[in-house]
């Protein structure tokens, strides 16, 4: 019953943006005055706003039904209760059902493959829904102000140039922007709601296309269209792995569904999550002889094929599935080595960067990794952890030297996504997703702030031209400061810690617990810790660069102004959430809800060496090291912030001098570790070479063959023509002339005199009668 109610509200929240998209794209185009009307924007805001209300309502219903997971928290979170066994959670969830799944609509049935639209609703779904709709609402409102330049019949794009060197003039695309945003919201919510991995893939591609459209929104700019292409292609590489994973999955499991299909408390259709059973050590159940992984039902009983043998899957293929799915996540979340598209994606309008490329879409990779966690084996998780670790360091270092305010934020985003991946990889499932939520708030906040700055500075994005804007745009500056503090993870007394403090601490704590259990992988703790400092450094560097100090470009400074209320109000709302959304930390509602649906095998602390050679830290182990980790991280962040203050907040040190002295390193970082060049040399150039060869081959070989064939056909045709004209035509002409001569001789009968015809008829009848009479007398 609760499941149906939740489904109802979430379906509304999901489908409203689609309706909004349809209305905006059609009525926007056909409305009377599409270039000057804000109707499309308010339509989009209305749709997503109502969607937020529905989501929040669904969250409330779920929370009430599950008592906000406080009971479970009392059991799990209590440090003294370390004896909780793996089976505990299952019995518990039987009493409090937290995950609801079912079929929305069956798209088609192909043999045993059933392509359906399913839903899978648990706390993660609901939290994601609420977060996405809330942030999207704020960003939509913000965009009304930010995109108001487009409300014109003749928009002058100063960044795009025509062939004669002038600026591009084009009609405004206000309504189109909001239509795309609505479509994106629909796709993103669909991705979150999806109840099977194939459906996830569908919406995965849909958010991809929305991202493509929005990155390339200023399509006249070559940089923008290139960036859109780059994002799309990079994502395709990841999606290729995703597809491989799906194929293997389908071959061995025969279903895409996450959850079990339950009818009258009987499981009628096994979901993926219950097919891979974990024993008490957190290992997957395996066949004792072959070593293959057994496929089980909900209660751990092994499923059998039709011939009676056990259904099983080779272990390495389970690894392939995990790596394949994770490849998709790597592409979507811009992880190493596919991280290069995200900074370029900043070519899109800033609200897009805030919504798509920081808070939601790029987080979808992390979300999927979290959602699919029950299917990941240790090898995969280790890969995830290292990928995240590399990414977070790499991106943070580049962020230190970036000068474009949005690029800084973009690298920061990559870095933070790396944190999340790391969290998931080191069994800090809840920590990674916790950081996903908090990061969404403060990163979208900072992007909007940067958007406000850019808007206030008349589309100036380079930080070296800013400075001293603090009192020009105070609301923007202070909300940005909230965001910066949040991402740095600062601690405040009375529990008023910034949200980043809680979430990053959780990840670092997980990592610390992990290396305690597996000392060989100590890098997985050290690098994040170091990067925590770097994060604080580059964030405060950005803030100081922008808002304090002397104005570096007087022209920009003079014309800077605070943004209108439609832009500042969303900032204030988001700032509040960025500060307080994680209120209470590990005993706060948000974290408890997430742990409520944590995969069951993570609860216990398992130290026994397993096949993968990895030891699993349980909740208790993580909790034990939490305070240590928090202190280390805070020290790192404070020192990073201090360095930033010294370098950029004061005039004590000449930054340029340092930059010059570290020229080599700086260049390396400023060129993004030469990844673009590397890819260019590795893939682009060979591809161009191959293409050039193909073109040559086409022209030299294929075309000659074709031309020869054509010439020979011409010769044949000439002969055919001769035959046609003499033989065929002659025959036809013969018939025609014969017909004509017969007609000419018969035309005499046609006198054209009506009365004679009557006479002929009568004569004919009489003659017929005479013949009959003489032939058959009587």
């Amino acid at each position, binding site marked *: 019953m609760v499941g149906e109610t939740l489904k109802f509200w979430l379906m509304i929240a999901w489908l409203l943006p689609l309706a909004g998209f349809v209305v905006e794209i059609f009525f926007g185009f056909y409305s009377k005055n599409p270039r000057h009307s804000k109707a499309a924007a308010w339509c989009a805001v209305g749709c997503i706003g109502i969607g937020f209300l529905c989501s929040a309502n669904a969250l409330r219903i779920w929370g009430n039904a599950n008592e906000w997971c406080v009971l479970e928290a009392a059991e799990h979170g209590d440090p003294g209760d370390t004896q909780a066994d793996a089976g505990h959670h299952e019995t518990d969830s039987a009493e409090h059902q937290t995950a609801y799944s079912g079929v929305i609509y069956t798209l088609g049935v192909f043999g045993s493959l059933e392509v359906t639209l399913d839903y899978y609703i648990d706390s993660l779904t609901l939290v994601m829904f609420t977060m996405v709709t809330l942030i999207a609402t704020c960003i939509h409102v913000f965009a009304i102000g930010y995109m108001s330049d487009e409300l014109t019949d003749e928009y002058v794009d100063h960044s795009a140039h025509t062939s004669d060197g002038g600026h591009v003039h084009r009609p405004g695309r206000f309504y189109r922007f909001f239509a795309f945003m609505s479509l994106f919201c629909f796709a993103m919510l669909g991705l979150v709601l999806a109840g099977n991995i194939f459906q996830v893939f569908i919406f995965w591609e849909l958010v991809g296309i929305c991202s493509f459209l929005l990155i390339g929104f200023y399509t006249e700019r070559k940089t923008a269209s290139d960036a859109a292409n780059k994002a799309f292609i990079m994502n395709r590489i990841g999606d290729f792995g995703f597809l491989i994973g799906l194929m293997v999955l389908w071959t061995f499991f025969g279903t895409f569904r996450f959850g079990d299909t339950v009818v009258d408390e009987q499981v009628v259709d096994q979901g993926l999550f219950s097919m891979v059973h974990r024993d008490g050590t957190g290992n997957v159940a395996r066949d004792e002889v072959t070593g293959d992984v057994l496929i089980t039902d909900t209660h751990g009983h092994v499923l059998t094929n039709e011939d009676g043998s056990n259904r099983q899957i080779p272990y390495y293929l389970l690894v392939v599935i995990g790596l394949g799915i994770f490849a998709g996540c790597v592409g979507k979340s811009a992880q190493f080595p596919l991280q290069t598209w995200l900074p370029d994606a900043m070519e899109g309008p800033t609200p897009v960067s805030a919504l798509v490329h920081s808070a939601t879409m790029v987080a979808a990779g992390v979300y999927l990794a979290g959602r699919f966690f029950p299917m990941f084996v240790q090898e995969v998780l280790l890969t995830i952890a290292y990928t995240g670790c590399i990414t977070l360091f790499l991106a943070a270092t580049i962020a230190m030297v970036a000068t474009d305010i949005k690029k800084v934020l973009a690298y920061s985003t990559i870095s933070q996504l790396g944190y999340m991946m790391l969290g998931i990889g080191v069994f800090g499932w809840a920590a990674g997703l916790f950081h996903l939520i908090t990061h969404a708030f403060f990163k979208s906040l900072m992007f909007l702030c940067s958007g406000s700055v850019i808007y206030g500075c008349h589309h100036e994005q380079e930080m070296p031209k800013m400075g001293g804007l603090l009192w020009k745009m105070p609301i923007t500056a202070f909300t940005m400061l909230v965001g910066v503090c949040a991402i740095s993870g600062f601690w405040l007394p009375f529990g008023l810690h910034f949200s980043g403090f809680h979430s990053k601490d959780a990840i670092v704590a997980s990592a610390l617990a992990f290396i305690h259990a597996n000392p060989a992988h100590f890098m997985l703790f050290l690098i994040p810790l170091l990067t925590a400092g770097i994060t604080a450094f580059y964030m405060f560097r950005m803030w100081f660069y922008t808002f304090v100090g002397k104005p570096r470009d007087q022209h920009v400074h003079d014309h800077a102004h605070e943004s209108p209320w439609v832009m500042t109000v969303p900032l204030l709302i988001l700032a509040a959430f960025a500060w307080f959304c994680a209120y209470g930390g590990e005993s706060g509602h948000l974290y408890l809800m997430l742990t409520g649906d944590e995969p069951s095998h993570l609860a216990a602390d398992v130290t026994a060496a397993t096949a993968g050679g990895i030891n699993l830290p349980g909740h208790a182990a993580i909790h034990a090291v939490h305070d240590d980790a928090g202190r280390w991280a805070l020290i790192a962040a404070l020192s990073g912030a201090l360095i930033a203050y010294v370098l950029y907040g004061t005039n004590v040190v000449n930054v340029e001098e340092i930059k010059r002295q570290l020229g080599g390193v700086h260049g390396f970082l400023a060129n993004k570790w030469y990844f673009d060049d590397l890819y260019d040399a590795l893939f682009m150039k060979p591809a161009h070479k191959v293409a050039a060869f193909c073109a040559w081959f086409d022209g030299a070989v294929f075309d000659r063959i074709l031309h020869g064939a054509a010439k020979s056909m011409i010769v044949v045709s000439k002969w055919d023509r001769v035959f046609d004209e003499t033989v065929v035509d002659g025959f036809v002409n013969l018939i025609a002339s014969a017909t004509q001569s017969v007609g000419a001789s*018969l*035309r*005499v*009968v*046609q*006198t*054209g*005199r*009506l*009365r004679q015809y*009557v*006479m002929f008829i*009568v004569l004919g009848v009489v003659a017929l009668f005479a013949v009959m009479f003489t032939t058959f007398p009587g």
Partner: protein
Amino acid sequence: MPAELNSYLLVGAVLFVCGVICMATKRNAIGVLMGVELVLNGANVNFVAFSKFTTLGLDGQVFSLFVIVLAAAEAAVALAIVLNFYNNHLTVDVDRGNKLKG
């Protein structure tokens, strides 16, 4: 009864033949039309006679009714054609309408 039937049929035959001759000799288009009417009436007389004197029964009357109705329709169309003919040739002499002669 056969004598009576025969006399009806004879009347019908006379009407029919007169109609045919009328169609064959009249150069006036309307005269031709009248010939057609006579022919149709000859047939009608036969139908009604058969209806009365043979097993044809009511069907004969129904047929002649249809003949009358359709003859009226035919006359209307034919007259319209004649008017068109007159508009084009300024005469109703059917011998002038010999454009289709071979």
